[in-house]
């Protein structure tokens, strides 16, 4: 599902550069395992192991040649798994402290979760001192990796600035303009009603997406989504009431396709043009043009999310496990710096895999001004660059994932079974209070 903060990340077509690196690396991969946990002995080739998931693995492999220029004698070994498998394996490795990789890639939702524990190095401390690079990263991305104890547990490498993609042709047919969609959330829904009447198209894939963004709008930096710093439950606040009201309105007017992201139904909506807008991460354009709905090229445009809401849709981080072999930690840190602080590397990942750079320096390039044919020649990267800088970090809580599930359940009770919003949110509050301090 593509909700903000859901585990999705910006990466697109795998380029051959990553593939050729794999071939060279085969023998190294074969020996993966035992060696990586042992301190390096004299005479043995040193090796940094990096655990990742597609397509971060391709980005990492593509960086190996540049690493070799600096350290011809130190190999990089990439262990790649499906992304849920990867995070399960990382949880297992951290919990038992064995077979920890030197560098661990993490999807942004997992950063919040892992930040609660003490398994990852505090990179603010010597010898890393990541604080000195703070201003070189997109602000929210950096702040998102700071836990309650003030430790910096990971370094951002790519981000997913939120944007509203919409079908220009359908809007024109209904006599609407972009501002009708983006001025306010109420206006967005009103526009949806007109759009449906004029074209028959749904406004959005799923009404739940409206709620997902709205509960994130107007958050102060560090403010929690469902819980505040003292674990008080926040779900009966006006933020939730309004989000529920609008989502219900969308459903009542039959403005959503009731499809779930990455289902056939969802993909078909894009192909047939039965869904007119999609709030999503910037990386979605690459997916649409590459394979989801290539035939709709030129019909789409990108806009900011309604009511000047700025949220992130996924992103990737690198971390160093505390109990990883200490002899490799400095090298691991150097490799992370290559991946995250090197402008050229960040930029290459953007071009090859739609990994929107978390490094601010990499935003300063004519590439951002290039028109995008899929968006009818729009210079949308400028828009996304702007959005990236306005996103604020949200505080994480141990029960965030559970809270998300409870809220979605109550929302569907409200939308489909006529439950009152007040009752629904009160029920959610009760369930969450039981867990807040577990």
């Amino acid at each position: 599902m593509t909700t903000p903060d859901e585990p999705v990340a910006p990466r697109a077509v795998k380029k051959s550069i990553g593939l050729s690196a794999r071939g060279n690396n085969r023998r190294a991969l074969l020996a993966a395992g035992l060696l990586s946990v042992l301190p390096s002995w004299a005479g043995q080739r040193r090796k940094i192991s990096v655990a990742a998931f597609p397509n971060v693995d391709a980005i990492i492999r593509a960086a190996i040649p540049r690493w070799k220029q600096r350290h011809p004698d130190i190999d990089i070994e990439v262990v790649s798994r499906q992304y849920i498998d990867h995070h399960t394996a990382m949880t297992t490795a951290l919990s038992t402290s064995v077979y920890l990789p030197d560098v661990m890639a993490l999807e942004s939702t997992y950063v919040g979760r892992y930040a609660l524990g003490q398994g990852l190095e505090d990179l603010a401390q010597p010898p890393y001192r990541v604080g000195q690079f703070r201003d070189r990263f997109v602000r929210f991305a950096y702040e998102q990796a700071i836990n309650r104890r003030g430790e910096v547990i990971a370094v951002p490498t790519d981000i997913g600035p939120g944007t509203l993609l919409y079908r220009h042709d359908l809007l024109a047919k209904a006599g609407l303009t972009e501002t009708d969609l983006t001025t306010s959330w109420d206006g967005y829904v009103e526009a949806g009603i007109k759009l449906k009447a004029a074209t028959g198209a749904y406004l959005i894939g799923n009404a739940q997406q409206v709620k997902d963004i709205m509960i994130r709008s107007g958050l102060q930096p560090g403010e929690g989504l469902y819980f505040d710093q003292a674990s008080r439950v926040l779900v009966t606040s006006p933020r939730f009431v309004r989000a529920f009201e609008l989502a219900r309105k969308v459903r009542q007017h039959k403005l959503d396709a009731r499809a779930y992201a990455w289902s056939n139904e969802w993909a078909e909506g894009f192909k047939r043009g039965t869904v007119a807008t999609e709030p999503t991460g910037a990386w979605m354009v690459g997916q649409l043009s590459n394979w989801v709905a290539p035939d709709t090229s030129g019909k789409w445009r990108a806009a900011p999310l309604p009511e000047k809401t700025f949220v992130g849709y996924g992103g990737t981080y690198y971390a160093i496990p505390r109990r990883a072999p200490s002899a490799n930690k400095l090298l691991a840190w150097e490799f992370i710096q290559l991946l995250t602080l090197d402008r050229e590397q960040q930029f290459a990942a953007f071009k090859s895999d739609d990994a929107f750079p978390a490094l601010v320096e990499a935003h300063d390039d004519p590439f951002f001004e290039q028109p995008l044919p899929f968006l009818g020649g729009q210079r949308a990267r400028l828009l996304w660059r702007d959005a990236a800088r306005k996103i604020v970090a949200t505080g994480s809580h141990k029960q965030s994932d559970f809270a998300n599930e409870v809220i979605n359940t109550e929302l569907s009770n409200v939308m489909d079974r006529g439950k009152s919003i007040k009752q629904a949110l009160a029920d959610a509050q009760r369930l969450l209070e039981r867990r807040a301090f577990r």
Partner: protein
Amino acid sequence: MRTKAHLLSILRLSPRLAPYVLISPFLILFAVFGVFPLLFSLYLAFQSWEPTSGLAAMEYVGLDNFAFALGDEWFWKSLKNTLWLAVAAGAPQHLVAIPLAVFIHNSFHRFRDGIVGAYFLPYITSTVAIAIMFSALFSTDFGLINVGLGLVGVSPIDWLNEPNSLKPMIAMVVFWKYLGFNVVIYLAALQTIPKDLYEAATMDGAGRWQQFWFITLPSIRPMIYFGVTLSVVGGLQLFEEPFILTRGNGGTDQAGMTAAVYLYRMAFDFNDFGGASAMSWLLFIVVVALTWLTNRAFRPRGAAT
């Protein structure tokens, strides 16, 4: 052959020792791989643990996890779902598989492999393909089933999002997937029934129903016990099908969230390994109770298992 016989006679065992030798592989493997995980999860059920902090981060919380589990609405909801699905998906499997196996056994000779194979295929088909196929069949706007219903004037049903239709759908997929598996098991059992039993019965003038009822069913009774036990155990631990069909979250209103799916989510999504362990032991008690009941129902008269 001769050397083998020779070898066997060297390894001559006393009849008293023999059974222990025969079950020793089980005992050894259980001691090495089974005991520790059991103790670990039992220990964990009394701890609060943030796994990413390592083993040392466990904190003893007494019976908190059990108290939490017993008072948790979602846990009870998931248990109810589990029982519903176990019955709705489990019972038809056997009610259909037994007659089907008998019919195939008696009436198919030439195409027998083919027909058994066809029923067995769902068991080996990739779950990803199954998920795509079923979501395509049951899709609200474009699904073949709703298109079909539309032709006869029924308005589209939101199969995958409507809690009332989600459970039967999952039950159907489970039934469909394991039917062939049961047919194969019952076929294996049917083959052990001596033909002369039937011949004698026919001579005594017993009809087909009587033969089915008085010869076939009693003869395959141990296998029915086996099959039903598996369905009970498998049904109560049902995980993969609801997990995939509900995109891993249990579906709208958690209508498809079985206890196993909830346990998994508690541990790996909600990061509560202590609570999940306590729940898994509570679930274990339920499974034991129901398996014991099954056992009683099928206990051969006079025997001691």
